[in-house]
């Protein structure tokens, strides 16, 4: 019964989305204020109704998963009665059909928030709701035509097939909703930009209306990527945090462009500069989200994310992608000549720095784009299968990002329109001093001496030191609102992540040995004594659990117990790594193969500063949150105008 309710709710939601699209777009071009008012009201009501029906459909599917209703195909293929409750729930989006439903649920949430939002004129709001309604209709249609989550199974099996054990993890339960909150949040920004172009209200107030959505999307993307990277680190057992895998790149590209967007919007809102550019970025950011979805969901990429390879689905998303991106760009090309110029600025000004930020970020996104899509293109055209790995990204992405990071601290300390570079540089001198000092120290203690190491730490110190200066200046200026410290937090977070990346990359130690009980291995300053492997039973898996005593200078300081788990329902095995962290460094141990006679392969890493990578990501997200906080206070608009 629940399945039928869900399906019915989806159909009704589709109808409402179409009403929302029609009424909203009509309102954007309506003549009188009366018809505008009416169509806007209809669009708003439809948005609320759409949310209610999608929530009902999502609730129905969740109910199916929680009660293990195996008469629903999606549940039967992806759940199991013995699975812990949290993974029954996260299993809802651990498959293609359910994850698309989650995508639409997030879209419905944003749509309803746009209907509540007070900012932006009536015409703009109406148009934005219309565009969002179009996107909603396209995605619900996609679900109904190609990925029905409520398809029945007859006869109904006694037991489900279970969920990929790699996905049965608390970090991963949260990763997809976060990432979707980011991807889909960019659809709201896109809708406002498109509405601004349709209504020709391309001044600064569309940017002001879109800004909170942009920030939520950016925060969620930052957290989603951080969670994903952390998950890869502790689940895959390779000790790495970023692999330049196409699926990771699919999330990184929208993040890079969204970062450029939240910076260029600052100028658009404040002085009206970069109007057309900001509109174009808003379109590009959501387009990259769609491309990411296509890459990940269509099965063209091989990864844990490609749930099923159904060419029909890939084709539909490709059409949707083409129509959305092509339509938006055509609209932009048509309207761009009419966009007014903003205020002018001097070469030494915050606008220039924001411009450089955008140039670097979009160039970085372009290199990732080429590296990710070139293999697909080459395969499609010539049939040659190649892959582009980390060396490519090290050569292209790194230099661009170094250029960006060198300039980051200058921006917040240069005045709008006309700044004084000398004053700014003098102010930031302590940051530069700290950078020089860390470069010298790292160069001296590091053996062999490496300029790259010294440079990486100097750059991180420059970011953190300059953020401290920025904080002091803002504090002195009695800037009390949290939003004034957004850039301090975000830029310092970037520096902290960089410390983590540099430390782990440069000083990691790795050891791989086959150990019999009683034997020891050495990694960095630690000895690991292997005490053997014992079987253990989990809720829905059997594990081989190893015990290793961690010793330092002959003294036992801890016990560490990595596992190998096998899931009978899914017929799969995974490695459960064991990580001992003190907040500054990780001791990371993974259990390998059984070599017989009680001997096992053990792989251990010592990763200095690794926790900083994700800690920095969290601080960056906090910076975004601080900026959002400032936007959502009632008098924020007035303060911004001053």
């Amino acid at each position, binding site marked *: 019964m629940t399945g039928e309710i869900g399906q019915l709710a989806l159909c009704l939601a589709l109808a409402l989305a179409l009403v929302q699209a029609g009424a909203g777009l009509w309102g954007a071009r309506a003549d009188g204020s009366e018809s505008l008012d009416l169509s806007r009201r209809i669009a708003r009501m439809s948005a609320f109704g759409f949310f209610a029906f999608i929530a009902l459909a999502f609730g129905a599917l969740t109910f199916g998963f929680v009660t293990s209703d195996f008469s629903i195909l999606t549940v039967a293929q992806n759940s199991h009665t013995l699975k812990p409750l949290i993974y029954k729930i996260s299993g809802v989006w651990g498959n293609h059909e359910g994850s698309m439903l989650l995508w639409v649920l997030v879209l419905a949430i944003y749509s309803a928030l746009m209907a509540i939002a007070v900012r932006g004129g009536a015409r703009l709001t109406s148009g934005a709701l219309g565009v969002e309604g179009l996107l909603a209709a396209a995605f619900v249609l996609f679900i109904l035509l190609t990925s029905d989550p409520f398809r029945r199974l007859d006869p109904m099996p006694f037991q489900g097939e279970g969920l990929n054990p790699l996905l049965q993890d608390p970090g991963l339960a949260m990763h997809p909703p976060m990432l979707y909150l980011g991807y889909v949040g960019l659809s709201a920004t896109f809708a406002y930009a498109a509405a601004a172009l349709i209504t020709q209200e391309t001044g600064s107030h569309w940017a002001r209306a879109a800004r909170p959505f942009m920030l939520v999307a950016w925060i969620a993307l930052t957290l989603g990527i951080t969670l994903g990277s952390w998950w890869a680190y502790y689940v895959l057992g390779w000790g790495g945090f970023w692999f330049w895998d196409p699926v990771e790149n699919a999330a990184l590209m929208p993040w890079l462009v969204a970062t450029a967007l939240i910076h260029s919007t600052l100028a658009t809102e404040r002085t009206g500069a970069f109007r057309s550019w900001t509109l174009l970025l808003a379109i590009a950011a959501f387009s990259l989200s769609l491309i990411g979805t296509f890459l990940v969901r269509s099965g063209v990429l091989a990864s844990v994310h490609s749930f099923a390879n159904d060419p029909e689905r890939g084709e539909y998303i490709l059409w949707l992608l083409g129509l959305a991106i092509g339509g938006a760009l055509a609209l932009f090309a048509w309207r761009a000549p009419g966009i007014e110029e903003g205020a002018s600025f001097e070469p030494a000004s915050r606008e220039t720095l924001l411009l450089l930020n955008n140039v670097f970020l979009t160039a970085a996104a372009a290199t990732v784009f080429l590296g990710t899509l070139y293999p697909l293109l080459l395969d499609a055209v010539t049939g040659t299968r190649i892959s582009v790995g980390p060396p490519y990204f090290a050569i292209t992405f790194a230099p661009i990002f170094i250029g960006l990071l060198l300039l980051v601290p200058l921006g917040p300390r240069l005045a709008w329109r006309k700044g004084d570079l000398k004053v700014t540089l003098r102010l930031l001198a302590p940051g530069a001093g700290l950078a020089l000092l860390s470069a010298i120290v790292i160069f001296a203690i590091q053996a062999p001496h490496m300029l790259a190491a010294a440079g990486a730490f100097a750059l991180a110190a420059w970011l953190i030191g300059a953020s401290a200066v920025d904080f002091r200046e803002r504090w002195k200026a009695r800037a009390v609102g949290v939003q004034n410290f957004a850039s301090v937090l975000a830029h310092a977070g970037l520096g902290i992540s960089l410390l983590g990346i540099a430390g782990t990359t440069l000083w990691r130690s790795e050891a791989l040995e086959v150990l019999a009980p009683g034997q020891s291995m050495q990694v960095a300053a630690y000895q690991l004594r292997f005490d053997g492997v014992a079987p253990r039973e989990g809720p829905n898996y059997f594990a081989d659990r190893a015990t290793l005593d961690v010793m330092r200078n002959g003294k036992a300081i801890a016990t560490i117990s990595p596992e*190998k788990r096998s899931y009978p329902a899914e017929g799969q095995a995974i490695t459960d790594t064991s990580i001992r962290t003190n907040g500054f460094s990780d001791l990371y141990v993974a259990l390998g193969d059984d070599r017989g006679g009680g001997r096992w392969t053990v792989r251990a890493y010592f990763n200095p500063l690794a926790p900083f990578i994700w800690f920095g990501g969290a601080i960056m997200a906090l910076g975004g949150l601080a900026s959002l906080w400032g936007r959502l206070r009632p008098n924020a608009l007035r303060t911004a105008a001053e």
Partner: protein
Amino acid sequence: MAPKKRRRLAFALALVVAGAGGAALVLGALKDNVLYFYSPSDIAAKHVSEGVAFRIGGLVARGSVVRGPSADVRFVVTDGRASVPVLFRGVLPDLFREGQGVVALGALGPGRVFDASEVLAKHDERYMPPEVVDALKRSGRWKEGEGSQ
């Protein structure tokens, strides 16, 4: 008007410089850092030089996995027509099994043994790496409806 024009010019110039720089970096990097994919038949047919990094894919031949005294593992990758011996030192992925699909990254070493630095197996039971499917199709060992869903 002048400052506006100058600004636009500066913007355009910055974009051109960044674009050209980026393009140069990308083209240079793509030329030197692309990894080709070869099936065992490709390796038998073409001349692949020793020491050139590439990826190989196919099925792990049944009964071919030999674990050495240290962490070494030897196995044979086959596509049904040709096969290549592989040497790997490390922890094999959890889903590495005899008779199943595998992709390895490395280079040919002495004696035409593929010295693998990384071994990837499929992520779950339902999934087969597309390169492997391709290699098996070309050698005529692929049956529709097998492996990938």
